[in-house]
Each structure stands twice: as structure tokens, then as C-alpha cells.
């Protein structure tokens, strides 16, 4: 379980706490990085950067503003999207799509790590909440969240009116918020 006291120990330079933080969060963050970047090597590089940034900036984590996992996920997503955009800027055409990402994950399904097993109930709840959304809403949220596309870029990609895309994202996020009400502030992403 990642609790704020673990982060407080990391702030004090506690190596064991940092090691625990890694054990409890790395599979989730790696999964997210692979989903966004589409390959394992880059995801591993990204995780290296993210954990070093955590080590350096952990003292700026504020308990009142979100769970430790939310902080780590947000940081990882943010840095992964940065990389994705830098790659696009270098002219690298990201082949990463929903299908490609899924294929990678299926191929890489190893033994389920501790943190994943421990969160089984929450994982099922999230899976169900996402699956309960209409396909179009899932797609729009996925393109924004995992590919860093703005609503305008999504509208262009899907060839849909901008308002429609905005509405899909708003409705989808709202349903997820309501569906995950009891989990939202759970904060115990073990």
C-alpha cells in the first residue's frame, strides 16, 4: 500500500522506503508508460527518469492534493506524453494506436506483480466502469489520455465535429467519476 507516510520516509532519504515505493508502483507506471509510448525500452527509460524525479522532488508532494498513486500516475503520464510529442517533433511517426498498444500488452503479460494482484478488486471496478462506457466515449478519452491528443486533434483524427468529441469526453469522464465514486478517494492503490 502506498500511503503518505511511505512518501514521508522517502523524503527523509530512506532507501528502503524508496525501494518499497518502487515495488508498489512500478508495474502500474510501466503499464501506463508502455501504453503511451508503445515500446518497452522507452517505457523503461521513462520510468528511470520518473523515479529519479520522484526521488528529487518527493518533498514537494502534498498529501492534501491527491493520493501518492495519483501523483505518480500523473507525473508518469505527463512525462510520457512529453516524450511522445518530442518524438513526433523529431519526425518520428508514432505507430502507436489502441490496437497496437493492446497487442503489446497481451504479448507481455507476465506473472501478475504484487501490486496488480493486491488491487484486483479496484482493477475489476475500473475495468467494468470503462467497459460500461459507449465505445465512442472510450475511444475519445483514450486518445486524449494515452496519446495526448487535444479535442481538436481527436476530432480531426476521427473526422467528427469538435462539439461531439468534447461531449463524448465530458460524458465519459462524468460517468467514470460517478461510477468510481467509492474508489475515487480511496487512495489505497496498493
Amino acid at each position, binding site marked *: 500500500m502506498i500511503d503518505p507516510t511511505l512518501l514521508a520516509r522517502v523524503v527523509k532519504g530512506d532507501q528502503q522506503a524508496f525501494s518499497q515505493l518502487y515495488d508498489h508502483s512500478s508495474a*502500474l507506471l*510501466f503499464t501506463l508508460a508502455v501504453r503511451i509510448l508503445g515500446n518497452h525500452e522507452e517505457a523503461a527509460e521513462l520510468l528511470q527518469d520518473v523515479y529519479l524525479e520522484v*526521488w528529487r522532488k518527493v518533498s514537494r508532494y502534498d498529501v492534501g492534493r491527491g493520493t501518492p498513486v495519483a501523483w505518480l500516475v500523473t*507525473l508518469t503520464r505527463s512525462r510520457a506524453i512529453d516524450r511522445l510529442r518530442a518524438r513526433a517533433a523529431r519526425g518520428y511517426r508514432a505507430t502507436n494506436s489502441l490496437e497496437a498498444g493492446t497487442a503489446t500488452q497481451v504479448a507481455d503479460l507476465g506473472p501478475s506483480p504484487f501490486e496488480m494482484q493486491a488491487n484486483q478488486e479496484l482493477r475489476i471496478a475500473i475495468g467494468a466502469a470503462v467497459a460500461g462506457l459507449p465505445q465512442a466515449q472510450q475511444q475519445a478519452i483514450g486518445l486524449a489520455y494515452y496519446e495526448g491528443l487535444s479535442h481538436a486533434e481527436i476530432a480531426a483524427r476521427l473526422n467528427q465535429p469538435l462539439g461531439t468529441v468534447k461531449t463524448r*469526453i465530458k460524458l465519459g469522464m462524468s460517468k467514470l467519476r460517478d461510477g468510481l465514486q467509492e474508489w475515487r478517494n480511496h487512495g489505497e492503490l496498493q
Partner: protein
Amino acid sequence: MTHEELEESVPLYAAGALDRTERQALEAHLLSGCASCHSALKDYQAVAALLPLGLSPTRPPRSLKATIMAERNSAPISAEAAHKEPARPSLEPGEWMNHLFPPVAPARSFSLPWAIGLATLLILGVGGYLAWNVAAERSVDTSKIQQLEVSLQEKSTKLASLHREVGDQTKALAELRNEMQQRVNEAADAKEQLAQRDAELEEIRVQLSQRGGARTVRTPQDELATLLQIPNVKAVSLTGSDMAKRAAGFLLYDSRTQKVWLYSVNLPECPTGTTYQLWAILDKPVSIGTFHMDRGHTAHLLVKKVPSFTDAKTFAVSLEPSGGRPQPTGPMYLLSRS
């Protein structure tokens, strides 16, 4: 943008779907302190942070942890780094909202002169830093060598004192060894003496057994002798009656062992068919035992165990028919003086 429009953009913001301008507008609004938008964003952010848990898990390479742990050791510690960071506005939504701020996108075009200028600056900067670093390292090295010399000096002094201590200990040990040797010798002498005493004792035993034969059995005389040494044994003397004026007796009795000893002298020889009988007299005479005087004998010791007499003070010896009688029937020969 109206507040309603801003509020509607919150879920898009959380999903990461706003473009740069819209993001900045909402951020400005949040920084202005809108509590309801802040609260809504927090909720949506929490939902967004849960989304990756819905993905099929992918395990990171095993070596990644070791790499990160190793790199982290060379990274500055968090507290220090945090100290150097400039203070942030209090309304800033926190590090977990970092991604809300536009990522630093690389410039799409970069003019060559600028690039060269920048590169030169970079080289100069790095060069200067390295030069400064080397100089700093040298001065650090010199002071380190001095520290090491001082520490070496201290160690040498310590070593010398340790040497002295070891010498002292060795001497003490030698003394102890000598002392121990002495004790061992003394013990050997004592043992020898003991063996000698044993031999002497054995010799004495042999001599005793040769002299005394089977004298280990306790005789009444022995017992009497022992008895005379006990202070609380009662002693009563008896004198001869008219029947035997030269006769006398000496009686001891020990209530502890309930034994009576009668030592009599000069009693006349018992005529055939008669015997002497000793009486204890309290209210009436009680027979203690009989004894016989043969021809030529002048002394006799009678030893009897008497279960129950304690207070008798008078004793008498009479001559009775053989086997004795329950009450005195014959003449008295000895009588205690009471």
C-alpha cells in the same frame, strides 16, 4: 470564457484533452482561487489517475529497479534539491498536477547560427566548470593528504602504546606462569606427604590388628567406661549387709538407654541351687535380673536392660533360689544407701 465554460472544461482538462490556450485559461482561473472548479478538478483528476489500473498489466524488466536504485544514489538527495527549488505560489494545485502545465515542446526549427552560438557557450561553460572542478579537487586532495597524515600519526602513537601494553601483559603472564608452577610443586609435595601418612596409617592398622586380634567387639567393660563419661548417668553405691560385710557394689543406670550396670565385689559364692537377684525398690521391689557368683570369683558385672523404672532410688541384691523369684524371699546381701 464564462465560468460555466471553464467549469465544463474541467473533465476535458483532467483527461488531457484541452489545447494549450484552453489549459492556460483554466489554470489561471484555478489560480484565482475558484473553489468549486478546484474541487471538481480534484475529483476528475482522481478518476483520471485510476484509468491505468484498467489496463492489462505489463511487468517492468527485472533489471530496471537495480538501475534506478543505483542512479538514485548518484542523484542529489531530495531534501537538498527541494531546498534549491524556488517557492511556488500557494494556490498552485500541487506536483500531482504537473501535467496540467504545457510540456516543453522542442522548437520545430532551429537556426544554425543560434545553434553554433549556443554550442560554443555550452562548451565554454562546460570547460570552465571542468577547470574549476579540477582546481577544487586538487585543493581538496591536498587537505585530504594532510588529514591522512595526521590520522597516520595518531595511529602510530596508538600502535606504540598498544605495543607497550602487550609487553606488560606478557610480563604479567610470565609471572603468573611461575606462580602456577610453584603451586603445582606444592601440590605434588602435599600429595607425597599424604601418601606417606596413608602408609603410616596402614602400618598402624596392621600393628593394631596383630596386637588386638578381634577386639573390635564392644565388651560390657567398654560400655561401662563409655558410660562413666556421660555426666547425667545416675550412680548408686551399695554396701554389704551383715550377711557379707566385705561386699560392696556400684550401680549405674541410664534412662536414655534404659540400661543398668551393677558392679559387685566380694560377694560370697552362691551355694548350689541359689542365685543373686537385683531389685529396684520404689513402692515395692521389682526384679531387675539375676547373677551367679562362682567359686574363686570376687567381682561381677551385671548388665540388664530395664524397660520401666525411672524413679527408683533404692536397690538391693538378695540370695534367691535358682531362676529368681518375683518378690525377694532370701536374705539381702547388698543394699543402696538412700
